[in-house]
Every structure is written in structure tokens, then in C-alpha cells.
């Protein structure tokens, strides 16, 4: 039998031994090549903008310029507007809509909040294919998206709630909350979007870094990457994991899905800023696979945006990821 004092001494020695071993193992497990010698900076990476990426990543940049991500949102002009604004008229579900141009600008005459028709200037295009919608400015920093939309396949105007007469005061009316860009649409159509909703004033001062879905939407803010590429560490062959970006190379399916899913899912956000996490549900609540939105076998029925169906597919569980079939830059 050991005395109490002897026990304490042995426990102490064991603790020191385990600590030393753990420290040694930790230092061995860290790939020395992944640790840059130069301290880049300790400030969080900031958004650099897509033009900063172009000179080194010309192919990806050119692909992206052709993508739906590039056209997710644009200023309305001759090259971005797909719809017929040559004084076209479209009557649907009790509302007469007229699409016309005046002084080089695009206008829609349609039913407003008061139930009467007014002229509304189109500020932005929203989406491109298979449909395009149009954003109109309202008081309180709001943008609203019209229910009448352009069918890019059939090249015709259509009403999203065909067969339903939506009252002008209804939540579903295009001037109501369900068609409010700031709340419902904005965060997935622009880069570094801040909704900035003011509860006291019930108004928005929404901002974006870039109007469309650009490089840093998926790869994260790029300033650290740019700083690193200019250091001696990079030039002398030292490496930084993914060179300071998200998911640049060799992602596993779950990592890549974490990049795409925040927008390619029907979901509810849990916080204003994304929490760094490997668990998707730390940041969002995805729509449950119910027969209201999905076919019985789990395929997309309603506006589900891939994630819910893909995550339960045989493909995903066999290790297939989005980029096995799609070029993530061009979207093809």
C-alpha cells in the first residue's frame, strides 16, 4: 500500500508526463508547411472585391462572368433586362400590367398598395434564367419584387400566382412582406449583404459589397489571401491552408455542401452573421422534407433549391459533390 503522499506525487508525475506527451503530439501533427513564418495580420479578413481576383484567376473570372451568379442582380439596363418593355400589356387575375420605357428607363404600370395602377420605375433586374424579376424602390429603404415576372424560356410575361386574385393589402401582394427584397431575397443575390433592419423605425438601410454573387460569396473575404500571396512565405514555398480562403481545393462533400447550402436551400436563417461551423444547422433551419414542398421520393417539387433533396440522395451519400457535375464558377 502506498501512502497518501506517494499517491499525490505519482499523480503529479503522470500529469506532467501526459501534458508533455500531448504537447509533443500536437506539434508533430501540425504540418510545418501549413504554418506561415510571417504573421500576415491578426485583423479579420475583409472583402476585396472580385476585380482583385481577376488578374491571377482569369479563367475562373471569365467563367463567372457567364454565370447566373453574375446575373443574380444587376442594374436595369439594355444588356441586363430580358423582359419585353416595348409597351407590352399583360392582363392576369384582375390586374392589367403594362411594361414600357421612358427616357431610357424601364417602367411597369401595375396595381399598387392602394389597389390602383401606378407607374413604377424598375431599378434592378433579379435573376436571369429561367425567370427574371424586377425590383422597385419603396419608402423605408425597401425594394419590392413584382409578381408579374418574365419567363425567359417561353419569352412571355406571367403571373406567379396564376389563377389567384391577390388583394392589394394581402401579405402575398407584391407590395407586401412576402415580396420584400431586403428580408426575403437579398442575402443570396449579392455579396457581403447586410440587411440592417431597424426595428424601432421599421425600415432598412441594406448594403452590399458587390451587387451580385461574386467570388467572396463562396470563398470568403479575400484580403488575407491577397496579403499572403504577396509574402515571402508563398514565394519560398510555404503554405497556408487553402491560402486563406474557403474551399479552394480538395473539399470533402460536406465542406462543399456547407458552402453551397446556405443559399441553395429552402431555409430560415438563425443569425445575421454566419457562425463559423461545420454544422449547417448552426446557421439555418432547412425546410423539412414534407409533401407540401417535395415529391414523395424526396425530389424537388416546390422552390426548394437543391439542398434538401441532394443531402438525402444516394449520390451525396456515395461521396458525390456539387462540383462533380457542375462547374461552380460558370454554373454549367
Amino acid at each position, binding site marked *: 500500500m502506498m501512502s497518501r503522499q506517494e499517491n499525490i506525487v505519482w499523480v503529479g508525475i503522470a500529469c506532467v508526463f501526459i501534458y508533455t506527451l500531448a504537447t509533443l503530439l500536437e506539434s508533430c501533427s501540425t504540418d510545418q508547411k501549413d504554418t506561415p513564418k510571417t504573421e500576415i495580420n491578426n485583423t479579420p479578413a475583409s472583402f476585396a472585391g472580385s476585380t482583385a481576383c481577376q488578374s491571377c484567376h482569369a479563367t475562373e473570372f471569365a467563367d463567372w462572368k457567364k454565370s447566373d451568379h453574375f446575373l443574380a442582380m444587376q442594374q436595369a439596363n439594355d444588356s441586363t433586362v430580358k423582359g419585353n418593355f416595348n409597351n407590352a400589356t399583360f392582363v392576369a387575375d384582375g390586374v392589367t400590367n403594362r411594361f414600357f420605357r421612358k427616357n431610357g428607363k424601364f417602367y411597369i404600370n401595375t396595381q399598387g398598395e392602394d389597389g390602383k395602377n401606378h407607374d413604377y420605375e424598375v431599378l434592378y433586374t433579379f435573376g436571369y434564367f429561367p425567370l427574371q424579376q424586377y425590383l422597385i424602390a419603396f419608402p423605408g429603404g425597401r425594394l419590392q419584387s413584382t409578381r408579374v415576372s418574365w419567363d425567359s424560356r417561353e419569352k412571355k410575361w406571367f403571373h406567379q400566382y396564376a389563377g389567384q386574385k391577390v388583394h392589394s393589402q394581402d401579405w402575398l401582394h407584391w407590395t407586401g412582406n412576402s415580396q420584400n427584397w*431586403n*428580408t426575403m431575397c437579398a442575402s443570396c443575390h449579392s455579396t457581403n449583404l447586410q*440587411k440592417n*433592419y431597424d426595428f*424601432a423605425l421599421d425600415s432598412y438601410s441594406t448594403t452590399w459589397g458587390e451587387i451580385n454573387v461574386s467570388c467572396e460569396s463562396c470563398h470568403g473575404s479575400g484580403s488575407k489571401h491577397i496579403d499572403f500571396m504577396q509574402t515571402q512565405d508563398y514565394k519560398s514555398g510555404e503554405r497556408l491552408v487553402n491560402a486563406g480562403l474557403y474551399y479552394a481545393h480538395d473539399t470533402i462533400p460536406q465542406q462543399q455542401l456547407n458552402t453551397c447550402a446556405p443559399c441553395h436551400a429552402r431555409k*430560415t*436563417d438563425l443569425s*445575421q452573421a454566419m457562425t463559423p461551423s461545420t454544422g449547417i444547422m448552426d446557421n439555418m433551419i432547412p425546410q423539412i422534407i414534407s409533401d407540401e414542398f417535395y415529391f414523395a421520393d424526396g425530389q424537388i417539387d416546390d422552390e426548394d433549391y437543391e439542398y434538401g433533396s441532394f443531402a438525402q440522395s444516394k449520390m451525396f451519400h456515395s461521396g458525390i459533390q456539387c462540383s462533380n457535375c457542375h462547374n461552380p464558377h460558370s454554373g454549367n
Partner: protein
Amino acid sequence: MQVKTSQIFNLAYLLIICMTGITQVGRLVAALEERGELENTLFFYTLGDTGSSAEGGMVGLYKENTFFNCVPETLETQLEKIVELREMFNE
């Protein structure tokens, strides 16, 4: 516990009681007691504004915009809004 027919009858009416004010629940209890039905009644009390809605949460919600924009409503701001609402109705 044996459930009587009259209890089931009341249960059907009180399956979901959607009220935010405890005063209103008190009135309901008093009314049932007055009619001698209190002992025949099962209460199911659900928290939330107009029922336990996904947006409403445990303490109710002044405006859904706060939920959708991830801006928490504090008790102070809710009280301010309640005063505003009362003034609107008084006008």
C-alpha cells in the same frame, strides 16, 4: 383518470387556447367556474402570439420582420411598441 363525455366536450373547445394575457385566461377560468364546468374542463395552454407560430417564439412578436431579419425584440422595445399601438387605437 376517468374522462367523462362532458370533459371531452369542453376539451374540444379548449384544445388550443391562444392568448398572451394571463388576465384573459383568468377570465376564462372564472367564467367556467361560474357555470360549474371548471371541474369538468381540461386546459391546454400554449404560449405565443396568435398561437405558437414559428415566427412568434415564446414571448410573442410585434412584427415578423424582426424574426426574418434576425433582430431580437427586447422587452423594452416591445413595451414601447405596445404603447404606440394603444395610442393608435385611441386616436
